[in-house]
């Protein structure tokens, strides 16, 4: 059977636009022209826009939403164990993924998959050593801002980082860094890692031999660890680490990052600082993706809930907006329903996107006023990515 000729037959028929049909809704039957045969085609994507939002969906995919239109634009395959990154030039989506050749058995395949941002075609698959497998751990994977290198966290349970040459399509080398995990990319030339003793390990790398440096421990990793979901602004290299109790540590990542004295989210809101008491009820940060960042205004968004210490996975009932440079709370936004994930658009007057654990709608909020702009029916989870400007 010749599928090509059949396709040709279809494509040679005339195509009428949908609008034509819609405009005749509720009209009485008329002698209007009979609708003609349509060609089946495949959509392509416009350039990545500032109001795109790409949440996880069903633990198997990420869905691309155009928030202004309130519509899905496409689907990127990526499971809850995958990591997804928008290429710095916005021409690709990168997905670090692990697939067994027979679903739950067979050959394990660790891959860095490259999807074209216009067609969503899978254009390249780079073979990797076994990645770290963790549920929705976005900090397992980063791409250098010059789009040359992918940094992928491995755990076997020994920990290392694969340095992937994205042009050549292969792993250039793997750096063992025991005791540390995850990857926080610098503005240029490397990445840092969080370590079990409360320090950062910094890996200067630009294609040659990596140089590793260590900071002193700067947070109490036993009693008040910083969330792994730190904010990194890759345009500036600024990182914001926030602890379970709401202590904020800022730094500019590099070979020798100077880490600020911590300030307290709660004190910035005019409330007492918060401790580690298991019956110390206070507003605390929490959720699956509790933080978002808007670079245009330097605003940090935090999901907050009333709870005790160790309630760091609890959904937020409020979104708190901070000016980080001024260490100041700007406003507290009551969320229409508890949110486990938050994200922000990169433009001025950021849109906030609040989502639940799974299978829920997207709440779109004006970050300046706190008003709910719209609620988009969806079945999406807490994890997401949003483009930079």
């Amino acid at each position, binding site marked *: 059977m010749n599928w090509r000729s059949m396709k040709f*037959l279809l494509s040679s028929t005339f195509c009428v636009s949908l609008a034509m049909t*819609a405009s005749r809704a509720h009209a009485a039957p008329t002698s209007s022209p*009979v609708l003609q*045969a349509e060609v*089946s085609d*495949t959509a392509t994507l416009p350039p990545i826009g500032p109001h795109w939002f790409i949440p996880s969906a069903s633990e198997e995919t990420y869905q691309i939403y155009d928030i202004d239109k309130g519509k899905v634009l496409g689907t990127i395959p990526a499971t809850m164990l995958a990591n997804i990154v928008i290429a710095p030039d916005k021409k690709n989506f990168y997905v670090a993924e692990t697939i067994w050749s027979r679903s739950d058995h067979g050959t394990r395949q660790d891959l860095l998959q490259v999807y074209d941002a216009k067609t969503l075609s899978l254009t390249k698959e780079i073979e990797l050593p076994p990645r770290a497998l963790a549920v929705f751990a976005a900090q397992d994977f980063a791409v250098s801002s010059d789009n040359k290198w992918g940094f992928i966290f491995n755990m076997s349970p020994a920990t290392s980082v694969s340095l992937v040459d994205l042009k050549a399509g292969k792993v250039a080398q793997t750096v063992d860094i025991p005791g540390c995990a995850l990857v926080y990319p610098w503005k240029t030339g490397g990445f840092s890692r969080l370590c079990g003793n409360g320090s950062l390990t910094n890996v200067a790398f630009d294609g040659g031999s990596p140089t590793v440096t260590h900071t002193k421990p700067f947070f109490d990793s036993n009693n008040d660890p910083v969330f792994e979901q730190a904010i990194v602004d890759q345009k500036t290299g600024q990182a914001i680490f926030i602890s379970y109790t709401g202590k904020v540590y800022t730094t500019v990542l590099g070979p020798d990052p100077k880490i600020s004295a911590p300030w307290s989210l709660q004190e910035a809101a005019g409330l007492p600082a918060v401790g580690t008491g298991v019956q110390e009820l206070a507003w605390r940060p929490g959720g699956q993706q509790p933080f978002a960042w808007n670079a245009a205004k330097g605003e940090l968004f935090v999901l907050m809930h009333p709870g005790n210490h160790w309630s760091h996975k609890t959904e937020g009932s409020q979104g708190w907006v901070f000016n980080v440079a001024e260490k100041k709370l700007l406003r507290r936004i009551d969320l229409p329903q508890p949110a486990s994930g938050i994200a922000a658009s990169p433009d001025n007057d950021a849109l906030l996107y609040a989502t639940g654990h799974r299978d829920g709608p997207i709440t779109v909020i004006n970050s300046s006023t706190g008003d709910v702009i719209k609620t988009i029916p969806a079945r999406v989870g807490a994890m997401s990515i949003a483009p930079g400007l």
Partner: protein
Amino acid sequence: MTASLFDRLGEKAARYLASHASRRGVLGKVGTALAIAPAFPLLPVSRAEAEEKPVSASLTDFERKAQTKDPDKCDYWRHCAIDGVLCGCCGGGVHTCPPGTEPSPVSWIGTCRNPADGLSYVIAYRDCCGRATCNAPADCDCNTADREMPIYKPQTSNDIIWCFGTKSTTYHCSTSAIIGKAS
């Protein structure tokens, strides 16, 4: 035998047969002889028979309630026998596959009535293939069944994954493309 024709000719035959097989009783009468007639375009045929009784008695519940405004809802007129996720909810459209997927060149066929012109059209329910199932909201997950048949009548059965001749048979979503006017 309908299915053997289908076996040999794929959508081309199935589309042709379905286009002559309206719900108004013609379906049982088409035979292999018709397959040699020109399949496209379809000639308009008198609808006198259908017009003899009140329309409401000859319309299915789907047809009575069908709308022409929102193709991303299950009650859009073309979706009278669709089983799956509407591609319009997934970045595609009523006859457009979402980015990264490809339309199956072979499909199954329904006959749906357009309330805007009162005419019945043959619809090709072409699946978009090559990606895991689209995770659209429940509103977009449809299972209508006007004139839908078991698998042994494959050209009108909507449980089959219609991804033949595509690079991958993974089902992503379903479209409802007009093939032509039903006789």
